[in-house]
């Protein structure tokens, strides 16, 4: 089976935030929850670079390792999903995640957290593919429709790539070879324990 990954080519990312609003649009994500965001380093200085970040769907995901109720599971495509029915909103995964992916709606006083929400690689959740319940809890299931996450599909400069890890790594390698520079596949070492050698 394919191993799904994200790759953000920081030499192409212009911080246009299309990925962020595409995610909102596709998954009807409410105000205050950001499954994806764009982080800019050296903002306003020479060497400024931006990277689009969300759940990277890690190999041996640290969120799953710390979850006290075992709500995480990895799909056959290596997408890391979770069950909101099981989630107790404890927030451990937030501390474990190297990418800051888990988000929590504020549902009550005293800072109590609701069920964790994060990027699903547009692959829904445990409910039946394409069902109303799945959409309400997790948003779209594009993967089941034969489509990739909308954030990457709508990326203005084709900076954010999503899909089979081997394929997107190959695309990235070719780009770097052709243009002669590349700042690396950001986050890959942390998420997938590998980098792209060129």
């Amino acid at each position: 089976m394919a191993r799904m990954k994200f790759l953000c080519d920081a030499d192409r990312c212009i911080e246009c935030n299309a990925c962020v609003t595409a995610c909102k649009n596709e998954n009807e994500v409410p105000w205050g929850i950001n499954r994806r965001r764009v982080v800019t380093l050296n903002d306003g200085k020479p060497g400024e670079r931006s990277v689009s970040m969300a759940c990277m769907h890690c190999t041996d995901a640290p969120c799953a390792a710390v979850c006290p109720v075992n709500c995480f599971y990895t799909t056959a495509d290596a997408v890391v999903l979770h069950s909101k029915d099981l989630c107790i909103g404890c927030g451990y995964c937030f501390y474990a995640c190297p990418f800051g992916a888990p988000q929590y709606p504020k549902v009550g006083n005293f800072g109590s957290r609701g069920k964790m929400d994060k990027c699903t690689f547009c692959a829904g959740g445990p409910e039946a593919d394409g069902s109303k319940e799945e959409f309400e809890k997790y948003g779209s299931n594009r993967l089941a429709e034969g489509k990739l996450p909308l954030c990457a599909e709508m990326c203005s400069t084709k900076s954010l790539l999503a899909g089979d890890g081997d394929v997107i790594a190959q695309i990235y390698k070719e780009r770097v070879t052709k243009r002669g520079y590349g700042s690396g596949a950001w986050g890959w070492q942390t998420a997938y324990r590998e980098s792209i050698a060129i």
Partner: protein
Amino acid sequence: MLIKRTERQARRSALAASLPGQSGSGFDRRTFLRRSGLAAGALATIGALPLATVRKAEAAGPNVAGATIRKNFCTHCSVGCTVMAEVSNGVWVGQEPGWESPINRGSHCAKGAATRELVHGDRRLRYPMKLVNGQWQRISWDAAINEIGDKMMEIRAKSGAESVYWLGSAKFTNEQAYLCRKLAAFWGTNNVDHQARICHSTTVAGVANTWGYGAMTNSYNDIRNSKTIIFMGSNAAEAHPVSLQHILTGKEINRANVFVIEPRMTRTAAHATEYVRIRSGTDIPIIWGMLWHIFKNGWEDKEFIRQRVYGMDDVRKEVEKWDPAEVERVTGVPEAQLKRVAETFAKQKPSTFIWCMGATQHTIGTANVRAICILLLATGSVGGPGSGANIFRGHTNVQGATDLGLDVTSLPLYYGLDAGAWNHWARVWEVDYNYLKGRFDDPKLMETSGIPSTRWHDATLLPKDKVAQKDNLRAMFIMGHGGNTVTRMPETAKAIEKLELLVVADPVPTTWAVLSERKNGTYLLPACTSYEVDGSRTASNRSLQWGEQIVKPIFESKNDLEIMYLLAKKLGFADSMFKNIKVEGNLPSAEDVLREINRGGWSTGYCGQSPERLKAHAKNQAKFDIVTLRAPADDPEVGGDYYGLPWPCWGTPAMKHPGTPILYNPSLAVKDGGGTFRARFGNEREEKAADGTVTKVSLLGDGYYSKDSEIKDGYPQFTYGVLKKLGWDKDLTDAERAVIERIGGGPDKSDGVAWSTDLSGGIQRVAILHNCIPYGNGKARANAWNLPDPVPVHREPIYTPRPDLVAKYPTRPDAVQFRVPNIGFTVQKAAVDKGIAKQFPLILTSGRLVEYEGGGEETRSNKWLAELQQDMFIEINPADAAERGITDGGWVWVTGAEDSAKAKMKALVTERVGKGVTWCPFHFAGWYQGVDQRAKYPKGADPVVLGESVNTLTTYGYDPVTGMQEPKATLCQVRAA
């Protein structure tokens, strides 16, 4: 693994055949690859990869749960991205990438990817409203149109037709824009304008006065061919994000040089090969400084200049004044850096120059544009792939709305305002010229430019005798135009209060509704967005795209076409205005309006783009090449066409001209979209030498011509008379000849009927039959003798931080322009005398954020976008912030140099701006001088995010040629709040 470009070409058509809709169910390999975000062109090389691992999916394509796909175009900038809407039961339920579009290939920016929210309409205006003693009340459409119409007629009777101002929109479709101009003509005024005034009016004037037409010469896609790219006053990464797809790909493939010349290190600069920091408002010294090196070292294209340019020697004289020391003294750019930029631009070709508001929004905007054009001419960088003046425009259809005459200086399609122009359109409209003349207060004003939108407040507030028409402005009818995008907002606030009638037709209430203390006489009409109407839009590259209505107008909102029809009916001229346009219910047919444009649009080549052809293009998007934008010659529906039939698309639709992807490109035959510079400025000019001798100098091309031209030299524009002289009139059909002779008034009186006024299209057809371009083959002008500064001259901003330079580089003398006085010189002198630069030591400049657009009312009402930018802010350098005790994220008061203006906002302390410079986004409104005006919006129609407008702080200053305002170089002071 290296990529072979030959393979890339070979596989393109195979890929096109597999685009969505035809790809069947699930993940086939190609769909998968494409959806991985890979450039379509580079796909072929992946063929050898093992892909057996891809999961087989069950569900079919995009049509989940019976949704249908409808195609329209994003309204937020001029790139023209395809929006693919999934519609279910009349509701827009999802957006899919428009992979087939050669322009955006599925991509969007934050705004395009969030555009569905606009039509969900949480914050949209739901029904017509009226202000009654300071309270908003719901009224019916009938009542609104009746009351507005009655009041207009009352004002007309009392103050004259010219007292009603029609402010149209760059978000109109072409059909809406054209109809708005026609409405103003039938009402009897030239006071009709739109956003182009405040964005690229100076570009249009500067470029058209140089080589013929006021538009981008090439296309976004064509920048893929460039080897050297200069951005000056353009932050495309935020203002036109999807254009960066082409630019960055080109940069990678060609290892292109990318220079960004700006007062601010923008997000675009972050992706440049070199960033050049300049002082705001010193564009001409930079360009002349570059040319100084180019001329000194002989890097100019001498043959190009000889054959195709008039007056370059006059430029040399001006350029000599700008030696490196003076350039550095004025702009701050060191010699070595500018020399490097100049040498690269002149030698590593093709070179293109991209500019936007940073160059245009100045008191010397037209001169800035002209200087850039001259640089392009001197280096021979116009009229071929990878070169050209790539002017990125700001809205979906600001190019189209400009073309169609939402402009105080012209009827549709640049015919101007003289009797010939009015007669041409009277013939197209089939109305009597004298009827139109009778609609005006004064026949002289019929041929006089109106008041630009930048000066509407002055025309309302100045003493009556200072405004060169019967009375002040008394009514504003505003369709899709923000109130906070015009400078000097304290004046705007006062003027709004003085109006007798204010009508705002817009999807949202806009700043107009809340800025003043008005209590009555204000109407809000809910217009629908462009996604709720059919019609064509002209992208920056002059391609027309036909968008289809995605959903019916929501709530009680109406199509602007319908609003204009209802108003025309009320005002009593609907029958003659819509004589040749079918009206169903109260909705005029967009197709019929476009056909009428086709019938009159000869001057700009808007004659060949019939609704049928444009619809075929929308349907066959996948067939167009991503670099050349051309479809294969053998395609049955769009064979040989360029995408969107970029104007000029000559002749009648039946002639099937393919459009012109690159203007003035002599390497193609005219029938394939080639051309030459336009012979627009006469055939020869008398030059007076110092000793009084007069020589006649030809303005026609010298020994150059477009491919296959039967005339192997320059030639004048084509008229019936010229055809006769050449003996080519025998190629006209009898029907064409009859039309020409009818226009001329008889067989022997018709020699003057030209390619632009011949309603049969015969003259164009015959010229092109002989591979000649209808508008003639002329020289571009380095010296544009009809402009205030025929050769651009640097002039300091009105409020300059360098008062020491004002004596040497003063602004132009006071004058009356566009019916109102322009007292820039007096204001500049007073500022210097009073030492304003000491009291307000920081430069204030403004610009765009990626999340918002224009005045921002619409985008700030979109919750997905609003979440990303919740506060108005000012960028300030760490050194300036430290001096003032300002912390990052803290509140500050910013004060402006006029009207004791002040504004409260947050500080963003950043090195993005240099010391002594501040920058603000211009999209905010809803706070005014520290006061939150949220309560003044109609309930539920307040934008999610409000903030101070930067234009509360901006100041006096107007370009003499177009009335352009000065929001890019003024002064301010900042203190911690």
